[in-house]
């Protein structure tokens, strides 16, 4: 699975796609694959603020809970309500299934995130391949 080159990534396996002041956030294909069948997603509400590097919610597979970490700081402008009833969409297409949209409070934070190539290298080191 290729990681889109126009996304940026965190070492906690989130992706962000930035368009102007709005960042769209999801989890990576590597993350969904490690988690297995996703059954539950806990997300903040529109209007809540998230802080770069801090937990903003959680994603649960049958086996385990994982924290979600915000790639950037900002106010939540939209939450993917589909995931309440169909969290398994993340498993079928992690790159296209967004969790939330954030209005970036500091666009420069994006520059500190991993590129697709960096992220791919990071995950291959993590699995020891």
């Amino acid at each position, binding site marked *: 699975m290729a990681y889109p080159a126009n996304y940026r990534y965190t070492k906690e396996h989130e992706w962000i796609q930035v368009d102007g002041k709005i960042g769209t956030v999801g989890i990576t294909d590597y993350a969904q694959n*490690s988690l*297995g*069948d996703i*059954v*539950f997603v806990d997300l903040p509400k529109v209007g809540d603020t998230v802080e770069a590097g801090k937990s903003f919610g*959680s994603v*649960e*597979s*049958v*086996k*385990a*809970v994982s924290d979600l970490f915000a790639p950037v700081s900002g106010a939540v402008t939209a939450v993917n309500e589909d995931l309440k009833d169909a969290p398994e969409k993340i498993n079928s297409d992690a790159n296209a299934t967004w969790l939330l949209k954030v209005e970036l409070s500091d666009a420069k934070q994006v520059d500190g995130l991993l590129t697709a190539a960096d992220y791919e290298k990071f995950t291959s080191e993590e699995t020891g391949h």
Partner: protein
Amino acid sequence: MSDTTAPTELRKTALNAVHRAAKSKMVDFGGWDMPVDCCGLIAEHMAVRTAVGVFDVSHMGDIQLRGPGSLAAVQHLCMNDASKLAVGQAHYSAMLYPNGTFVDDVIVHKLSENDYLIVINAGTREKDVQWVRKTIGHMPGVHVNDFSDYYTQLAIQGPRAAETLQKLTSTDLSTIKNYWFTWGQVCGLHNVMIARTGYTGEDGFEIYIPSDEPTSARVWGEVLATGAEFGILACGLGARNTLRLEAAMALYGHEISDTINVLEAGLGRYAKLDKPEFVGRDALLEIQAAGGPKRKLVGLEMIERGIGRDGYPVFSLDGKRLGEITSGSPSPFLKKNIALAYVPVENGALDTELAVEIRGQMVKAKVVPLPFYKRAKKTTLSQHLQLNY
């Protein structure tokens, strides 16, 4: 680099290379490198509930007690009454400490008049073998053998398990009743022990084949190929855990341990206190005489949104901490979030509403009957009809 303890080498079953080649997700389970997820936990779980699945459970241990004193040894060592077993019959039992808590839960098989096989858990193998030697090693006329590494143990489970295995054996499987076993030819191997046992709450079989890699890989492959027409999936420990949880079967280190006694665990029906003697009996009698256990294992179903998981604390609705969840998970078959938990007896009545603390939030649950899932008897019947058709 400051860690001075040598890394522990994970143990591997004879099928390890097969699991890795199949790209199953592997985890450290009690020191064993085991597949947790072969092709998707929910799909595997549903295959076992509706069709058939196969598990590598070779990490389980096997202790043989042999000799004229073997029955006396089993009777001293285990809480169930092995004198009731016929040759070819097995039952659920447990080895207890003198205080009535668990060394391990086991399946005792009567192989012949003076020969018993005790199947034990993977994570407790060494402890169990030491306990057996210490507890009955001095008794006359019994020889203890640790056969754990001699078998590859496969569990073929689900409503179509019998049809699958029947294609690989000349033994008439319809003659093997639940918790009975026999020996037969399987995949061309002679004298394979075929037991109608399992840990999924479904009909199924466990077979014990030689543990060399080529034989193990060949049989595993033949089971998968033969089961294909019935929808078989290779299953990992993830599905094994959700299946046994739905069936409310205990897992060592969770519902049962060296700090939980048999009566608390709700397994008193397997402790035959009318036997003259076994390790742990006196303690269980004392607990009974004192009015029974103070806490009990209950089934919980989350009624608000949230998944209670292992170790999460359980509270009364007025905020009193009652105990904790021992196993909790989404139930793939029931599509509810379920859990087993210990609570004081007075808080454990059916339909009692309780709260589970999930990541700082109190989430409501209620006490429900156990098991969460029980297979319909007609499943077994229809299967017999199909086999005898």
